[in-house]
């Protein structure tokens, strides 16, 4: 699993957590099934994309800071 893929996974889970937390803190209404699924899907996509970018950047930086990992 690459850094970008790992970041995307973490971002997707964070998206789900964010939606559920916003409902728990009374900022979001998850009464309707369709609305709730819509919120979740949008949050998962946004979280995965942002997480992918963060993971990709962190992976690049990690390899840059650890040149012994670079391919010979």
């Amino acid at each position, binding site marked *: 699993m690459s850094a970008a893929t790992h970041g995307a996974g973490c971002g997707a889970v964070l998206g789900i957590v964010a939606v559920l*937390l916003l409902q728990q803190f009374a900022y979001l209404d998850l009464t309707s099934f369709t609305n709730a699924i819509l919120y979740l899907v949008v949050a998962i996509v946004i979280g995965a994309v942002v997480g992918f970018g963060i993971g990709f950047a962190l992976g690049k930086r990690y390899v840059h800071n650890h040149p012994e990992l670079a391919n010979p």
Partner: protein
Amino acid sequence: MRGARGRGRWAGVVLVSLLALLVAVPAVGLATARGGSTNSPSVSGSPVATSGPTVLWNGVNIDSAGSASSALTVTFNEAVDVNYSWVRSAYPGVGDARLEMLYFGFPLSTRDVSPISGPASSPGLAVMNWTVGALQYAVEGVFGLTASLLNNGSTVWSENFYVRLTAPYSILAALPILLILIGVYELYGLVRSGRQAALGRPAATGAAPTTADATDAAPATPASSTPPAASETSTETPPPTEPEAPPPGGSS
């Protein structure tokens, strides 16, 4: 170095927890500013003269809580008096008054009461003493409720409204605490996702890392049991044989 990293890790966890608390605390003021705390018993409402049934939530008509922003607040351990009233001639045969709390479109809890019997000329009346029950230890936040009147199992009237369940200190419920812990864990995993770049990458100096925790491991050095490099044994080893020629005839 390792201690500094550990302190930074814990500082991050504490920082995220504080941010979550900061998000939680304004929600109380927000709900109050929205006018959510309108379920005070001092607000004595009376059934509005409308054609449809009327439901009073601690004396407040649920018509005033038709959106999430105007949700009625239910404090921890609070019991709410819910009064249904309707015109019997308009809704004959009503045998059940129901209150459902919905989450993701599914009923999280359902309460039913039978209406008070009376002559057909008198208005229909059903009284329910509603509590969140054990759910108040698990969840908080805005939930949609459906008040309905049923006749032999079929709904003859229903109305949706919103309530806001509050937990002690605005946070002490199982689900938000669990979600915050999961969020902190995943945020920590996201911050450390760069280490995943070490997986599957052979190190230039020797052994490939087998775990993502490559930086915590000792620097990769050739082990004593490792056979010597090819350049050291080139004088003793026979030259490599020529690769075998492909069989004549090629592929068929």
